[in-house]
C-alpha cells in the first residue's frame, strides 16, 4: 500500500507541477482610444471612432491586424478574437464603425466616401504606433479581417488602399444589389438561341427586347457604366450584366428588413436575445435609425414597392466590392458560409473571380455556417485566418511553419465521431478554385409533366425555405431546416433513384419553360429525396428566386435557372427533385393572383462536381499504432525483468540479540567477526558458493565409512561422529568462517535461551543424556544430519545428493511486518523416515511446508528436495505429494472427478497415478461420485490425502493429516504412513497430536517461533526425557520441555 500511496503522491506532484509550469498564453491588454477621422465626399465630416488597440504582448514590432465587426455589432464583438490574435504576435486594432457602438456618425454601408476613408485613417494611425511593423514610412504591415459588414469593408479598403497586405473577408457580399434583388434566371424568348449558362446568374439575354423593366434599368445602367469605368475595364462586365438582372430581381424582403432595421443585429443570438437599451427615439431616429438619410430614403422606397430603383441600385453598387475588387492587390482569403441565404456562395465566387482577374492571390473556403446560423467552426475559421496572416503578414520565415491554406476548401459532414458521437467535419481541399460550374458536370435526367401552379392572391400562404437568421436554429445542423411547399403552388420534377452517389459542388443549372402571362415570379429549389418515409431535404435551405418575363403574345418563355450554389452529397438511391413554386416567405411576391404552367425545357439538370476536392489525408492518428506497440514492449519488459529475485524483507527486522546478527551475516560481509547468532546463512553462502566441488572431493574420501539407513545410532557414537565431521569439514574445506560459525553455533545454541540452559543444568550429572543432548545439537550444527549417519556428509555429493529427500538449510522467512516466521531453520530428512514436525501454533511448521511446495519464497536459505533446489514450479516438485492446511477441491465436481482432473493437470500418464491405491486410502465408497461440496470434513481430509498420494510420490508432506478423522481412521492412517515409508519413501507429518507422532514417526523435528529446537530420532528424544520427569517416556513431556513450557 505504501508503494501505491507513493505512486499516487508522485503522480499528483507531477500533475501540479505541469499545471504550474505549463506555458500560459501571454496576457493581452487592450487600450481604449477615441480616434478622430475626417471623411465625407468633401472630406469635411469629423467622426469619433471608438477603438481598442491590443499591442503585441511580447513587445517589439509586429504586423497589425484590423478586425472589423459585423452589421449591428461593435468593437466589443471582436474582442475575443482580437485577444487571441494578439497572443499570436500581432498588433490588433478593433473599432466600432461609424454609426455603430459608441462611434459617432451615420451608417453609409461601407461607402468609399465614408467608411473606407475612416479605415484608411486608422491605417495611418497604426503607421505611427511604435508597436507596428512598417513596410515603408507611413505604410504599416497590416491585414484586415471581418465578417459580413466587416468583410465588405476589408475588401473595399484593400481596393482603395494599397497599403493593405492581406485580407480575410468572411460571409460578405460582392454586390449588395444582387444580394437584395437576386434573379437566378436567364431568360430568352421562346425560340431564341442566345441563351448562355453563366454562373453569375447574369448574362446579356435580357437585352433590348423591351421588357417592362428595361426602361427602368436603362438610365441606371448608363450611370453605372460610367462609374465602373473609373474602376477599371474588367469591372464593367459583371457590372452591366448584373444590372439588368438586379433590375428584375426579386426583393429579398425579410433579409432586407433585418439588414436595414433599426438597431437590429445580424447576429442570430442578439436578434433573438435582449437588445441594447436605448433611450426614446426621435421621429427621425425612429424612421432611419443611424443610417444616412439618403440611404434611409432609398430603402424605404424600395421596400415599399419591392422593386429595385435605379437610384437604389446605384447606391448599393457604390458599397459593393465587386465593382472595385479588381484593384485589390492584397492576398485574399474569402470565407463564405454554405448556409447563407443573405450572401450565398455565389458572392464569394464573384469576388474571387474579380480579385483573381487582377492576378492577386485568392483562396476560398466554404464553411459550415453563414447568416442562417450555426458556426461550430469558429476555431477552424480562426486557424485559417491566422494561417493566412502568418503567411502574408509575418513573411517568409513563419510562413513555412504556418499550415498552408489551400486555394479551395470545403467543409463537409464527416458523420459522427465514433467516440464522442459528435458531428465531425471534413475539410477537403483543392489546389485551384474551379468556380461554381465545377470541374465536371454530371447530367441528371429529370422528368415530370407540365404542371399548373398558382400565385395565391396576396402571396399567402407562402412556401418556406429558410427563415432568415434563424433557419439554422430551427432546423439544426445538416440541412436547411423546415422546407414546406404549399400545395397547388409548386411544380415538381424528379429524377430516377441515383445509381451512384453524387457530390454536388457548385450551382446546378436547369432549363424550364414557363407559360402564362406577364411577369412570373417563381422560386426554384433542388431537394434531396431519400424515400417516402422521410421528408425531403433542401440542401442549406437555399432557394433560387427567378423572375421570367413572358413576352406579349409568345405565351411562354424559357429560362435557364441557376440553382443555389451548395455542397451536398446525394446518396445512392436518393432522387433529385426540382420544385418550382410561386411563393417564398423570404421574398416579396406579387399580390396579384396568377396561374402559370411550368415544364422542363430540357430534361437535363447539369450538376457540377469538383473532382479535385480531396480530403486532406487525415490518416490514422500516430498513437493508434504506437500505443499498442509500446504496450507490448512494456509488457515484454515487465515480464523479462520480473525474473529477478524477490526482495528481501529482512532489512526491516529489528536488531534484537539473536536475529540482528543473522541479518548482518546475511549480507555476507561479516562471517568471521560475528560472535553471536545463527550460522545458517553462513552455511547457505557456503553451499551456494564455489564449494560443492570441493565438498564432493573430500566426502568421497570418507564414503567407505558411511553407514546408510535411518536407524538410530548410539548417542555417544552419534556425537562423536558429528564432532568428527564438523572438524573434518572445517579442516578439509579450509573455510575459516564456517568453522568459526559452527563453534559459535554451539555456544549460542546452548546459551540462547535461559530455560534451555536451565534444562541443560538439570540434565547434568547424567553423563550419557547430557552428551546425547549435545550430540543432537552438534548434529544439527554439522549440517542438519541428526540421524547418526556419521559420514552422511557424503550425501552432499553430486551423485548421491538426489538421494536426500529433503534438506533444509538456513531457511528464513519474514512476515510482512518483519517478524520472522521461520528463522534460520536447518534440518535434513533421510529416505525411509517418517518425520514428525512438531511445534506450537505459530512455530512456522506450515510456512516451512509451503516453502517446500514452492508456494512461498524464502527470504534466505534454501530447501532441496532430492538435491534439487525448490523454486516455484520446480520440476522436482513432481516427486512431492502434499497436503497442507486443509483440502482444496473444486466443490462442484465429484470426488472422483476432482482426483482424476488433478492428475490430468499434472500432465503425467494416467497409469502412473495408482488411483486404486489412493482411493482405497480415501475409502469414500459411493460418496466418491458425489459433488465434493456435500462431503464432511473427514471425507475431504481423506480425499485430500489420497490426492497427495497420487502417483506414489517419493516424498509425502502431510499437514495435520489426522484432523477430523475418527480413531479407527487415525489408526489406519498411521499404518498407511508407516507402510508408505517402509518402501523407501519418505513422509513428513506435522501434528499437534503428540501421541500420534510418537507412534507413527521415526524422527522428530521440534520448532518454536520459527527456530529449530531439537531434532533426532523419536527414541532418542524420548530417552532424554525419561529420567527428567520420572514418568514413562512421553513425547508430550519432551515437547513441553523443549519449548520451555514446562508444567
Amino acid at each position, binding site marked *: 500500500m505504501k508503494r501505491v500511496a507513493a505512486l499516487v503522491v508522485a503522480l499528483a506532484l507531477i500533475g501540479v507541477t505541469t499545471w504550474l509550469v505549463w506555458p500560459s498564453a501571454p496576457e493581452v491588454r487592450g487600450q481604449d482610444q477615441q480616434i478622430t477621422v475626417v471623411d465625407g465626399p468633401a472630406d469635411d465630416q469629423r467622426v469619433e471612432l471608438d477603438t481598442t488597440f491590443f499591442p503585441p504582448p511580447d513587445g517589439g514590432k509586429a504586423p497589425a491586424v484590423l478586425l472589423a465587426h459585423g452589421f449591428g455589432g461593435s468593437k466589443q464583438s471582436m474582442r475575443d478574437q482580437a485577444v487571441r490574435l494578439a497572443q499570436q504576435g500581432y498588433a490588433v486594432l478593433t473599432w466600432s464603425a461609424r454609426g455603430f457602438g459608441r462611434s459617432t456618425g451615420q451608417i453609409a454601408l461601407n461607402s468609399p466616401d465614408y467608411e473606407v476613408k475612416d479605415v484608411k485613417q486608422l491605417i495611418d494611425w497604426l503607421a505611427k504606433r511604435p508597436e507596428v511593423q512598417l513596410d515603408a514610412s507611413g505604410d504599416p504591415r497590416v491585414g484586415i479581417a471581418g465578417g459580413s459588414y466587416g468583410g465588405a469593408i476589408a475588401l473595399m479598403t484593400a481596393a482603395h488602399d494599397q497599403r493593405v497586405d492581406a485580407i480575410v473577408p468572411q460571409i460578405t457580399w460582392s454586390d449588395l444589389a444582387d444580394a437584395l434583388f437576386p434573379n437566378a434566371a436567364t431568360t430568352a424568348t421562346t425560340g431564341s438561341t442566345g441563351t448562355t449558362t453563366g454562373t453569375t446568374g447574369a448574362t446579356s439575354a435580357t437585352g433590348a427586347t423591351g421588357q417592362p423593366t428595361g426602361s427602368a434599368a436603362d438610365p441606371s445602367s448608363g450611370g453605372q457604366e460610367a462609374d465602373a469605368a473609373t474602376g477599371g475595364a474588367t469591372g464593367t462586365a459583371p457590372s452591366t450584366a448584373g444590372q439588368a438582372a438586379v433590375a428584375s430581381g426579386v426583393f429579398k424582403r425579410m433579409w432586407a428588413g433585418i439588414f436595414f432595421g433599426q438597431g437590429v443585429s445580424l447576429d442570430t443570438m442578439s436578434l433573438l436575445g435582449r437588445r441594447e437599451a436605448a433611450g426614446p427615439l426621435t421621429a427621425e431616429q425612429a424612421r432611419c435609425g443611424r443610417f444616412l438619410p439618403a440611404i434611409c430614403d432609398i430603402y424605404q422606397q424600395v421596400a415599399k414597392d419591392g422593386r429595385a430603383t435605379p437610384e437604389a441600385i446605384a447606391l448599393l453598387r457604390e458599397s459593393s466590392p465587386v465593382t472595385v475588387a479588381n484593384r485589390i492587390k492584397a492576398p485574399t482569403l474569402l470565407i463564405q458560409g454554405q448556409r447563407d441565404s443573405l450572401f450565398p456562395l455565389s458572392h464569394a465566387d464573384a469576388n474571387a473571380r474579380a480579385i483573381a482577374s487582377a492576378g492577386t492571390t485568392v483562396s476560398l473556403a466554404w464553411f459550415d455556417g453563414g447568416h442562417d446560423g450555426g458556426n461550430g467552426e469558429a476555431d477552424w475559421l480562426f486557424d485559417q485566418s491566422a494561417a493566412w496572416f502568418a503567411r502574408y503578414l509575418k513573411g517568409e520565415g513563419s510562413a513555412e511553419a504556418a499550415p498552408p491554406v489551400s486555394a479551395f476548401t470545403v467543409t463537409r459532414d464527416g458523420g459522427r465521431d465514433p467516440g464522442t458521437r459528435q458531428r465531425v467535419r471534413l475539410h477537403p481541399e483543392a489546389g485551384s478554385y474551379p468556380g461554381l460550374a465545377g470541374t465536371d458536370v454530371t447530367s441528371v435526367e429529370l422528368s415530370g409533366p407540365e404542371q399548373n401552379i398558382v400565385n395565391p392572391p396576396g402571396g399567402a400562404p407562402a412556401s418556406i425555405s429558410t427563415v432568415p437568421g434563424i433557419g439554422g436554429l430551427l432546423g439544426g445542423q445538416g440541412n436547411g431546416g423546415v422546407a414546406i411547399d404549399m400545395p397547388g403552388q409548386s411544380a415538381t420534377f424528379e429524377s430516377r433513384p441515383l445509381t451512384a452517389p453524387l457530390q454536388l459542388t457548385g450551382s446546378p443549372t436547369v432549363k424550364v419553360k414557363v407559360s402564362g402571362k406577364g411577369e412570373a415570379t417563381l422560386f426554384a429549389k433542388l431537394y434531396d429525396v*431519400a424515400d417516402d418515409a422521410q421528408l425531403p431535404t433542401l440542401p442549406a435551405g437555399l432557394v433560387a428566386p427567378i423572375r421570367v418575363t413572358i413576352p406579349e403574345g409568345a405565351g411562354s418563355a424559357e429560362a435557364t435557372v441557376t440553382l443555389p450554389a451548395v455542397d451536398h452529397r446525394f446518396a445512392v438511391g436518393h432522387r433529385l427533385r426540382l420544385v418550382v413554386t410561386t411563393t417564398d416567405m423570404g421574398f416579396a411576391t406579387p399580390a396579384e393572383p396568377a396561374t402559370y404552367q411550368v415544364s422542363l425545357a430540357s430534361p437535363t439538370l447539369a450538376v457540377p462536381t469538383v473532382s479535385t476536392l480531396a480530403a486532406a489525408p487525415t490518416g490514422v*492518428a500516430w498513437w493508434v499504432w504506437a500505443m499498442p506497440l509500446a504496450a507490448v514492449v512494456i509488457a515484454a519488459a515487465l*515480464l523479462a*525483468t520480473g525474473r529477478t529475485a524477490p526482495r528481501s524483507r529482512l532489512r526491516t527486522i529489528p536488531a534484537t540479540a539473536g536475529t540482528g546478527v543473522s541479518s548482518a551475516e546475511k549480507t555476507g560481509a561479516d562471517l568471521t567477526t560475528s560472535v553471536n547468532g545463527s550460522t545458517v546463512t553462513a552455511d547457505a553462502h557456503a553451499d551456494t558458493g564455489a564449494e560443492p566441488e570441493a565438498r564432493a572431493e573430500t566426502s568421497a574420501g570418507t564414503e567407505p565409512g558411511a553407514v546408510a539407513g535411518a536407524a538410530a545410532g548410539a548417542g555417544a557414537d552419534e556425537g562423536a561422529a558429528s564432532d568428527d565431521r564438523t572438524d573434518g569439514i572445517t579442516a578439509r574445506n579450509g573455510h575459516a568462517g564456517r568453522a568459526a560459525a559452527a563453534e559459535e553455533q554451539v555456544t549460542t545454541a546452548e546459551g540462547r535461551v535461559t530455560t534451555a540452559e536451565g534444562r541443560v543444568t538439570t540434565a547434568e550429572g547424567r553423563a550419557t543424556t547430557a552428551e546425547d543432548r549435545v550430540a543432537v545439537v552438534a548434529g544439527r550444527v554439522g549440517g542438519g544430519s541428526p540421524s547418526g549417519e556419521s559420514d552422511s556428509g557424503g550425501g552432499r555429493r553430486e551423485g548421491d545428493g538426489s538421494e536426500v529427500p529433503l534438506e533444509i538449510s538456513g531457511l528464513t522467512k519474514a512476515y510482512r511486518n518483519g517478524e520472522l516466521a521461520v528463522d534460520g531453520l536447518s534440518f535434513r530428512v533421510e529416505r525411509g523416515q517418517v518425520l514428525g514436525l512438531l511445534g506450537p501454533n505459530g512455530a512456522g511448521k506450515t510456512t516451512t511446508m509451503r516453502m517446500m511446495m514452492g*508456494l512461498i519464497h524464502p527470504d534466505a536459505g534454501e530447501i532441496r528436495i532430492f538435491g534439487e533446489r525448490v523454486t516455484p*514450479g*520446480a*520440476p522436482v516438485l513432481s516427486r512431492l505429494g502434499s497436503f497442507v492446511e486443509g483440502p482444496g477441491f473444486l466443490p462442484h465436481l465429484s470426488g472422483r472427478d476432482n482426483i482424476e482432473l*488433478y492428475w490430468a493437470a499434472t500432465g503425467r500418464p494416467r497409469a502412473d497415478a495408482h488411483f486404486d491405491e489412493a482411493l482405497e486410502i480415501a475409502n469414500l465408497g459411493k460418496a466418491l461420485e458425489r459433488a465434493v461440496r456435500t462431503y464432511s470434513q473427514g471425507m475431504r481430509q481423506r480425499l485430500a490425502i489420497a490426492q497427495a498420494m497420487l502417483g506414489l510420490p517419493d516424498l509425502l508432506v502431510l499437514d495435520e493429516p489426522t484432523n477430523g478423522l475418527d480413531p479407527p481412521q487415525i489408526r489406519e492412517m498411521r499404518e498407511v504412513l508407516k507402510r508408505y515409508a517402509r518402501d523407501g519413501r519418505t513422509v513428513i507429518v506435522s501434528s499437534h497430536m503428540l501421541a500420534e507422532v510418537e507412534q507413527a514417526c521415526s524422527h522428530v523435528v521440534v520448532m518454536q517461533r520459527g527456530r529449530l529446537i531439537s531434532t533426532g530420532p523419536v527414541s532418542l528424544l524420548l530417552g532424554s526425557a525419561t529420567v527428567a520427569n520420572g514418568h514413562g517416556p512421553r513425547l508430550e513431556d519432551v515437547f513441553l520441555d523443549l519449548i520451555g513450557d514446562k508444567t
Partner: protein
Amino acid sequence: MTTATGYAPNRTLPLRVEIVRQFKRRRTLGMFALLLALPWVLVIAFQIGPQPSGQGQAALRVSDLATQSGLNFATFALSVSASFLLVVAVALFCGDTVASEANWSSLRYLLAAPVPRDRLLRQKLIVALGYSATAVICLPVMALVAGTLAFGWKDIQVPGTGEVLPALDMLPRFGIVIAYALVSQLVVAALAFLISTMTDSPLGAVGGAVGLWIVSTILQAVEALGVVREFLPTFWNNAWTDALAPELDWSGMIKGASVSITYAAILVAVAFRRFRHKDVTS
C-alpha cells in the same frame, strides 16, 4: 532422476482439463443460460408489447427497428447487452478463474503438482478468454437465430438514417461487430484477470473489474476531460455501430482496438509478473 516419471512442465494443466474444470461450474452454466435465454426473452417482450405503428424519424432508433428483421434484432440485442451484460460475463470468466482456485485452496495443489506459475496463468487465461469469447459470440448469434425466427430474414434497416441494406451484405459486417465487441472486451478481461491473481475472492475480482469499468464510464461522461477521454478504456465501446453504417468506417474501431490492446497487454503482463513472485498463502 529429478522429476517423477512422465512429468513434463509443458504438459501440465492441459487446456482440455481446465475447460472441464471450469465448465461444470454453476456460475459458468448460469451465465451461458442467461446469455442464450436473453434473446428469447427480448423476442417475447417485443411480441407482447404494443407494436410500433407509425413510421418517421422517431422510428429510426435501434430499439424501434429491432423488430424489422433478424439482423436488426441481433443488433439491438448486442447494443443493449454490450455495455453491461457482456462486461459482467467477461469479468466473470476472467476474474473468477484464479481467484476461485485460491478460494477453494486448490490453487496450491496445482502449483505444487507442479504446474509452473506462468503456465498456469497462461492456460487459465486462454480458457477464460475462450469462455469470454464464446459468451460474446453466443449472445448475438442466438439473437440472430431468435430474431430471424420471430421477425424473419429481411434486409437490415440501418439505425439513424433508416437506409435499407441487403441482409447478405450486412452479414460480414455483423461479423465485424462481434469481432470488435470481442476486442473491446479485452480490457475488462485483462483487468479482471489481474485482480484475480491478486485476491482470493472471486467476486472481489469480478466486482473490482466491473467497478473500475463503471468508473471509466462515469469519467467518460465528463466532457471537460476533452481528448483525454479517448484513452479511457470504455470510450470506444460503441464504435461497432460504425460497422453497421451504410459506409463502413474503421477509424473509431481501430482507435478502440488500439486502446483496448494497449491496456490489455500491460495489465496481463503485470498479472504474470506479480503472480510469479507472489507468496501463495491461500
